[in-house]
């Protein structure tokens, strides 16, 4: 079945030409010389006042990167990237030492205000008493290569939560960084992750101590502003025994003719009984309707459920970027650990999305769930690529996968490339694309109470992702919610 008109209109509304975050902020910036060499790596490390071990770590990654070749297996086409034609470091020029939020360049603050990111701790400053239980969000804002502000530092500190730019964490908590950095995504992992290890400039670091439930949402907001820059951020989140943290990530960039490179690495570690919920609204500039410009988004995200009964949940709403190459994964190492992946990927215009997940079952009784919805319009290509594998010793492993795609127009493509590997008999894997099979009894229950099959499916899918979507910090949350409720009629695979 082709898509109904309502669906077509809804998708049109978020068309590439209407990118609303495409403005540019004019501020002076401090850049590293163009190009990539050991000197660039040393320059970045020196800018960040890093200890010697960190520089060594970067250089090792850089030398390894030189021996690697760019992967070509994904279903994306782009002109060869000239890695020497990029700036690897760009920071808003500091007018003076920043002591408080008031001293941040007002231009940058204005940028974030325009984006709807509440950076100023207005309520705190004005002593406004907030009702108990109301949600607040601590934000770490990354502008080009550096983190410009992190809010609610004090309150988080009182709870014992460390939330700071990773460049600061390297200086202030070297023992934690050294213990965890590169243990989930090793420096040799893949071409883009290795490049990131060599030249990452900033990103967020979160450590939640044992038994602590992080008192508020944590959020990082990435903005690429400078021309010809690559943004390489690195995020490291650790939830110690019994801890819980929910983390949100948002990204936008100005509209430019040339392509900008974004190669991030995100590492998550959960110990026994801990949980991390990681949500992304990726809204990088996708290029114009002719396919000129846009961000190349080559991201490595991986979570390691190291402890028993731990849980990692990835939620992503992908609407931006000219190219998306992203596979948030879970290594289910601890017994009874759980991995989740909920994704909505919308491609329009000339966008190319190759995204999916890996669920690697190593521990006993590990469970995972993958819900992926791809919507392709225009002349875009939207690919789901996923792996579910159970190791010999992963007895009782269970996975449920449902990936649906919707095509709007006959010039786009939707593709599904799942790998399902079972190496022991007690593993139970279900992979399906037929929407009517999402959960027969739940559907039956809904239909019995008067909902149509489609409404019931919509309700079920919404139920999975709703609580995450509602917490998204940007106005985009509303849009995303609308997209989620797009009826599943005409779904293919």
């Amino acid at each position, binding site marked *: 079945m082709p*898509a109904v008109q309502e669906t077509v209109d809804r998708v049109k509304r978020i068309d590439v030409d209407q990118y609303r975050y495409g403005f540019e902020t004019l501020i002076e910036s401090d850049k590293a010389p163009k190009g990539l060499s050991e000197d660039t790596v040393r320059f970045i490390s020196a800018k960040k006042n890093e200890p010697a071990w960190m520089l060594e770590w970067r250089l090792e990654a850089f030398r390894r990167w030189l021996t690697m070749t760019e992967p070509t297996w994904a279903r994306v086409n782009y002109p060869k990237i000239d890695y020497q034609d990029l700036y690897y470091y760009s920071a808003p020029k500091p007018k003076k030492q920043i002591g408080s939020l008031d001293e941040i360049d007002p231009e940058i603050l204005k940028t974030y205000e325009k984006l709807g990111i509440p950076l100023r701790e207005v309520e705190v400053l004005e002593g406004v008493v907030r009702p108990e239980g109301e949600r607040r969000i601590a934000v770490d804002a990354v502008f080009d290569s550096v983190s410009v502000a992190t809010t609610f530092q004090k309150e988080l500190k009182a709870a014992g939560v460390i939330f700071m730019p990773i460049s600061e964490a390297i200086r202030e908590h070297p023992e934690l960084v050294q213990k965890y950095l590169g243990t989930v995504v090793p420096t040799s992992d893949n071409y883009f992750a290795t490049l990131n290890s060599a030249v990452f400039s900033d990103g967020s670091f979160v450590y939640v101590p044992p038994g602590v439930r992080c008192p508020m949402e944590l959020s990082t907001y990435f903005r690429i502003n400078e021309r010809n820059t690559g943004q390489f951020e690195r995020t490291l989140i650790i939830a110690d025994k019994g801890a819980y943290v929910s983390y949100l990530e948002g990204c936008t960039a100005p509209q430019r003719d040339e392509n900008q490179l974004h190669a991030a690495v995100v590492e998550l570690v959960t110990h026994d009984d801990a949980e991390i919920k990681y949500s992304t609204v990726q809204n990088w500039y996708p290029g114009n309707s002719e396919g000129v410009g846009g961000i190349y988004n080559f991201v490595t995200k991986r979570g390691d459920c190291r402890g028993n009964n731990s849980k990692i949940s990835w939620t992503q709403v992908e609407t931006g970027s000219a190219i998306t190459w992203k596979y948030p994964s879970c290594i289910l190492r601890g017994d009874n650990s759980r991995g989740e992946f909920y994704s909505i990927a919308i491609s329009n215009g000339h966008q190319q999305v190759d995204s999916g997940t890996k669920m690697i079952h190593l521990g006993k009784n590990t469970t995972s769930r993958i819900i992926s919805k791809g919507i392709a319009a225009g002349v875009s290509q939207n690919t789901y690529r996923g792996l579910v594998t159970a190791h010999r010793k992963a007895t009782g492993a269970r996975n449920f996968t449902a990936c649906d795609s919707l*095509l709007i*127009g006959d010039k786009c493509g939707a593709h599904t490339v799942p790998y399902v590997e*079972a190496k022991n008999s007690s593993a139970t894997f279900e992979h399906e694309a037929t929407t009517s099979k999402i959960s027969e009894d739940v559907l039956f229950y809904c239909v019995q109470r008067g909902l149509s099959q489609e409404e019931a499916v919509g309700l079920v899918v919404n139920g999975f992702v709703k609580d995450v979507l509602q917490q998204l910090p940007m106005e985009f949350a509303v849009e995303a919610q609308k997209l989620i409720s797009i009826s599943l009629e005409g779904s293919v695979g």
Partner: protein
Amino acid sequence: MNVAVAKKETGRALSDSFAIARDRLPGSGKVAEARSAAFAAFDRVGLPNRRIEDWKYTDLRALLREVLPPAPAPDAAALSRAAEAVRLRAIKGVRRLVLVDGVFAAKLSELGGLEKGLAVRTLRDVLEAGDAALQAQLLAPDNSNPMVALNSAMMTDGVVVEIADGVVLKQPLHVVHVASGTAPTARFTRSLLRLGKAAGATLVESYIAADGARAYQVHDSLLVTIGDHSRLDHVRLVEDSDDAANICSVVVTLGARAHLNTFGMASGAAVSRYQATIAFAGEHSRVETNGVNLLNGRQHADTTMVMDHAVPNCASREVFRAVVDDRAHSVFQGRIIVRPHAQKTDAKMMTRALLLSDEAEADNKPELEIFADDVTCGHGATTGALDESLLFYLRARGLSEKEAQALLIQAFVGEAIESIVSDELRELVVAAARRWLEARQ
């Protein structure tokens, strides 16, 4: 380092045997040129390894190590052993065409009283003296697949069957591949079946071993064209000896309003790979393809299917079942391609694996590649063990553990087997499955 050296050495051994065999292989001129080009294509890559995406789960470099030298033509003793094997597996009411060690055995085949409109020739004859169009068709397969290229270079014999327009064969054709030579050697065969318009046929293929045949390799390929309004029923049984290898490539092209119903079962061979490409060239055609793997010991069986919807209004159904015991390994890779403008395509694929032992492995890769919007495509894949509660139910009613398992396994593979239209052939397959289950007990 060792692997690289080993690869070179086996590569050289094969180059030598190709150089020696080349003059004796049927066909000259264009055919010989095509053989050399195909061999060069194979030689560039060698046996495919797991770094090649299509061979990710079936690393022939590790599983086969080398391509064995071509088998010599069967002598009288080999032929009589083959005759005995054929007799044991004979199917009633079919026209038998037998290939022994890669050579057509006229004595064991039934060539008398051919129905009107049915022509049967050997590949050797066609390559040596056939018309150019037929030769071109035989040499058409894509040499970018190394195992197809190897087959194109080395093929010695096979059957070339043509069914004229409007002819519906009453008697099924049964092509039997018998391995009879006692030395570990390879057989390279290629067959072709051409159905004209509004024609119909049933083709049964079986792969068996005569007494004494061991550690041999079968490299086979089959080309099928189904004309407009024609129908082909196809059943394929791999019952090679448990130390043999069976690598088979199939290319099917369907015209308009054509119908293909195909079923394959692999219970024999240590290593088997069945790679099929089914392409729709005319509208309103339909394909049902079904498969069962019954594996134990250290068997490795791979089914790789490409369903190419190049035109609108066609339907395809794929049902695949794997039963994997001991340390066996079953692989299913299915790809549905819906090309631009192939609107109203209706394609479904379902693959399920049943793991009976903790060391068994099943890998599924059901892919969709869709470039048209007005289509319904779906796939499903499940992997799991036998349902404990069902087993308990049966045990509570007095069945032994093995009996209960056998009953559930039969039901599990039944869905794929049911698709066979002919009662006799279905019974034959059910009996083969039952033999496998009985051997388990």
